[in-house]
């Protein structure tokens, strides 16, 4: 799957989970850029992404993700 496509789908997951349709993610977005993206929502977001793409992250992998771009790349590798 194209990275753009993944980003778009991740974006809609964020909007749904964080209940804010105005969120626009880019590859360099981080938790600092999205108000509602806090420790409480983090696991929920990851879980939704996992379910949507039918992939599974290890805790270690989640910790290493620096931004949304890396999340999408990681998804891309897993579904390839």
């Amino acid at each position: 799957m194209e990275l753009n496509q993944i980003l778009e789908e991740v974006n809609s997951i964020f909007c749904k989970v964080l209940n804010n349709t105005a969120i626009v993610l880019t590859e360099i977005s981080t938790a600092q850029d999205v108000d509602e993206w806090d420790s409480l929502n983090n696991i929920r977001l990851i879980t939704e992404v996992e379910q949507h793409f039918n992939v599974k992250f290890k805790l270690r992998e989640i910790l290493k993700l620096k931004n949304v771009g890396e999340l999408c790349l990681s998804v891309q590798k897993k579904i390839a």
Partner: protein
Amino acid sequence: MKIFTHMHKLNLLPEIIKGICNHPDKNAFFINDKYYTYNTLAEHISGILEIIERHTGKNPQCIGIVEKDDIETYASLLAVLLSGNTYVILNPHNPVSRNNTIIQSTDIQLLLQSDSTDLNINVPKHLKLICTESSSSNNILRDLKISAKDEDLAYIIFTSGSTGIPKGVPISHRNLNAFYEAYSSLDFDLNHNDRMLQMFDLCFDVSIVSTLYPLTVGACIYTIPQNGVKYTQVYELLEDKELTFAAIAPSLLSYLQPYFEEINLPYLKYLILTAEASNWNLLSQFVPCIPNANLVNLYGPTEATIYCTAYHLDPKNVHTYNGMLAIGKPFKSMHTLIIDDNLQIIPKGEKGELCIAGAQLMEGYWKDPKKSKEVFVELNCFGVPTRYYRTGDICFMDEDDCIHYCGRKDYQVQIQGFRVELNEIEHTVRQYHPNGSNVVIAKPNQIGNQELHLFLEKYEGEDTVLMDYLKEKLPIYMCPKNIYGINELPLNSSGKIDRKKLLESL
């Protein structure tokens, strides 16, 4: 009235100085990816002691410290204690009005801040705001004369009052020393090779023991920044730095639960559960991740200096009630009683309000004699009238003299004339849905009758199915009126479930 008097063999501050001076080249802190040795810590403390001396008079006073995760903030806390003054933590994330109320009420004249970033505080004109950044001086600790007297206040912690006005809990050096001696006698096997976690906000008193105790043994303290994505950072520290001692809030475990299979922490010698009731089912799933750890559940209200009961877990024979771990037996300088609404001591096995007395107990709330009067009660302790603190916690004592926490008195509500413990409903929900936390909130409806609302994490099933289950297990008046699915239950700055926020959301 008898007040417990107690000759302390151990005093905290001299032991901290010994710990600092005996391990100059060992690491004292690991903060934000950087190590600081005990010598560096001593130099920071010495520098800040000079500042304090320049700006304060002979009489002890309250000194404000702006909370931040850096060496200067921790050194400030220690310097204020060693100078014989009283420290008061101000959290820059608190509302301005709250910080101003605290500054006014404690008459803070000197405020220490580790950097010059913007404060969420309206600094009054008379107040001296001193930046402690890179203030460092030759180590003077070895020759420092500790001037604090037993009755002088070590710190004042502000807790949220039910009226919205923060309540100040003043803790004296006598209280702190009694705590230190009792805590030491729990016999943790710790020394200068140990690596210990400090994950709590400094406004929360559990942070005090997580910070001060390691210094007495020369261990290294690993801190967590406030307001970060805490649970992942705690996990990283525990694993990467091979921490040997960690006091955590149980809510941390519910975040990590999906990843328990990956977690392996063989170096952890002690896991302390604190801050809120601890769910044994969840903890037991975590036990394989910490094969060499002793588990201890510690309980205590801020008013009785950090912790005052301890329960050492034997995983083969666990004492629980409603699925929650027992809080165990009182510390050695403390005495507990369980009483009914008529202040009568009740028999073993029956539930009532836990009352505690002893050397760790505060004298009274800061400048609030009315509130103090409400929480203290004179009861007989071995025939001697003694001042007890009413914790507001519903507890009972089991056959093994082990105390069980059943919930807050405030969480006990009358519904259609029945006394209902919200925790019992939560326990029942947990049996049906163990993979997410849940909270039941009672709120009076328009005609003043209590109605129950259930907030439930990670639940994808039908409300009606859950409701049918509850109706099978509970009397109808205990079944919640509404069920709300929620991504994650909100936590307050102490890591406890924020019931107030949930109530407000209704």
